């Protein structure tokens, strides 16, 4: 038992340590030299050397990011906030887009699972839309909502760029939900449907008493995968729209040449994505017991 614990704790640490070492070895190091210039004055020259000279080392990254991590909710300006403040902004946007994806994707999946005709009509469209990158959807979203400005009382005002971002997140993250729901509906055992038929349940009752519960495990697998994609898309969406958030911060810091913050953002995105996935797995596992 204790060996198992050690393994599951120690071995990942070994992996992480190895990665940090690799990072450190290719990162550039500052070397300060004192030389005499052409006039004979002594000047100190700092030069970066290394395989990837401009890549900050782990230590430099930590030093540059400390402010953002130890004061995670600080707000110094629209594009200069603590890392969790940015994460929160990103999560809010993702949640909205994800919600739209589920609201559209789940019924769509049900229709696909229930009707062969509908599947034949929609399948080519879905197969074509599915592989399109978020970077391609976003400009289209901008065009679509160019002059739109929606004011939802109590929620907020949505500008064109926000709507475009939501559109991109929704349309990119929808597909796993659609596909898994459709597969789940098709996989419902005939026995369950026979019960509904013998009892002569109405269409709506069959849907909510038999079809939906029977499909739930599949649906939640779809939901989990969709959430992963939604989080993946956020960076692209924020980058292109310039909205504040982890992705927007990343892009802005890249333009500002503070490369350490890029790494901070990447790690944050990774960790948050991992946490979201774990959370969804827990929910999913609860429905898997059926």
């Amino acid at each position, binding site marked *: 038992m204790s060996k198992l614990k050690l393994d599951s704790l120690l071995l990942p640490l070994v992996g992480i340590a190895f990665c940090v070492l690799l990072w450190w070895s290719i990162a550039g190091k500052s070397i300060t030299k004192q030389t005499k210039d052409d006039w004979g004055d002594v000047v100190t020259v700092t030069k970066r050397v290394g395989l990837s000279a401009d890549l900050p080392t782990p230590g430099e990254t930590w030093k540059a990011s400390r402010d953002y991590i130890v004061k995670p909710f600080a707000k110094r300006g629209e594009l200069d906030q603590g890392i969790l403040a940015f994460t929160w902004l990103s999560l809010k946007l993702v949640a909205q887009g994800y919600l739209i994806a589920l609201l559209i994707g789940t019924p769509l999946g049900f229709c696909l699972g229930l009707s062969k005709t509908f599947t034949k009509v929609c399948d080519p469209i879905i197969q074509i839309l599915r592989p399109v990158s978020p970077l391609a959807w976003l400009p289209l979203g901008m065009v679509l909502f160019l002059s739109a400005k929606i004011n939802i009382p109590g929620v907020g005002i949505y500008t064109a760029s926000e709507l475009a971002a939501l559109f991109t997140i929704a349309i990119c993250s929808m597909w796993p939900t659609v596909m898994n729901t459709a597969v789940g509906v098709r996989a419902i055992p005939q*026995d*369950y449907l026979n019960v509904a*038929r*013998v009892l*002569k*349940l109405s269409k709506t*009752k069959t849907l909510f008493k038999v079809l939906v*519960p*029977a499909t739930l495990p599949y649906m939640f697998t779809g939901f989990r995968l969709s959430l992963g994609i939604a989080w993946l898309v956020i960076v692209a969406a924020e980058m292109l729209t310039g909205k504040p958030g982890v992705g927007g911060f990343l892009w802005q810091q890249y333009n500002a040449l503070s490369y350490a913050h890029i790494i901070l953002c990447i790690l944050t995105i990774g960790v948050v994505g991992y946490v979201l996935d774990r959370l969804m797995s827990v929910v999913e596992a609860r429905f898997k017991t*059926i």
Partner: protein
Amino acid sequence: MAFLEAQNVSKGYGPAWNRSEVLRDINLTIEEGEFVAIIGYSGAGKTTLMSLLAGLITPDTGTVKLEGREIKEPGPDRGIVFQNYSLLPWLTVYENVALAVDHIFPQWTAEQRRKHAEKYIRMVNLEPAMQKVPSELSGGMRQRVSVARTLSLEPHILLLDEPLSALDALTRATLQDEISRIWQETRKTVVLITNDPDEALLLADRVIPLSAGPGATLLDSIAVPLERPRDRRALLECREFKRLRNEVVDRLLESKRKPTTAITRKLVLPDIQPEDISITTSRFVFGAKRKPKRPHEVQPVKVEVEV
């Protein structure tokens, strides 16, 4: 007019060019209040026949009528207990039964419906497991839930598809008595499918053997004139029971033999003369001493072959 009537029903599966006929020439009449057992081989088409009676599938030819009306779709007036229980795994025992009750008796008050559902759960002795989900139940318990759910619909006819086949012999006997008791109380029309001749004879008024497939059909029915209530121990001594039992089994065996007797296979052996099959116990023996044996010298060896 018969209560349940099937006329010239046939059913097959698969596309037209590769159709496997499962049932053919099914003619069946069952009177109201009768307890009929259909007995047949596994894979003969018993479940298919049951699905036809329930209206879950439609026959290729012929008609099935219940109370004079043709059966075109399933309905709660034909309570079917599925062979594989068909419980909804996300609902508890109580909820599985309540789903049926609530749907069939919407005019009742919530209290009445709850009492009704509980009554049938109690009838199959599952009160302690009421709040469990099917995955927490044994196979036999699931089957009992399925029976309770079907009985709670108060159907005109009960279609039981091997309701006890997954149970151990002891539980089986208890539930057989239970079914017998319920039938005597309610006098519902019951069609029981089984693969156990004893069970059929213990419970039914009439036993109908289903011939072996493919293309199975119902054979002549065998009336069971045994006194009720029937006691299983007394029956084992009863000569009439033994005779009936043999008759059922013989009919089934005969229906199975028929197609195979058509093929007569002869084992053809190669015509090779044995050369020397003596076993030398001493040293190696070479060339000259190795004399071929003539056929008349070969000792016949008796070999027992299990067929």
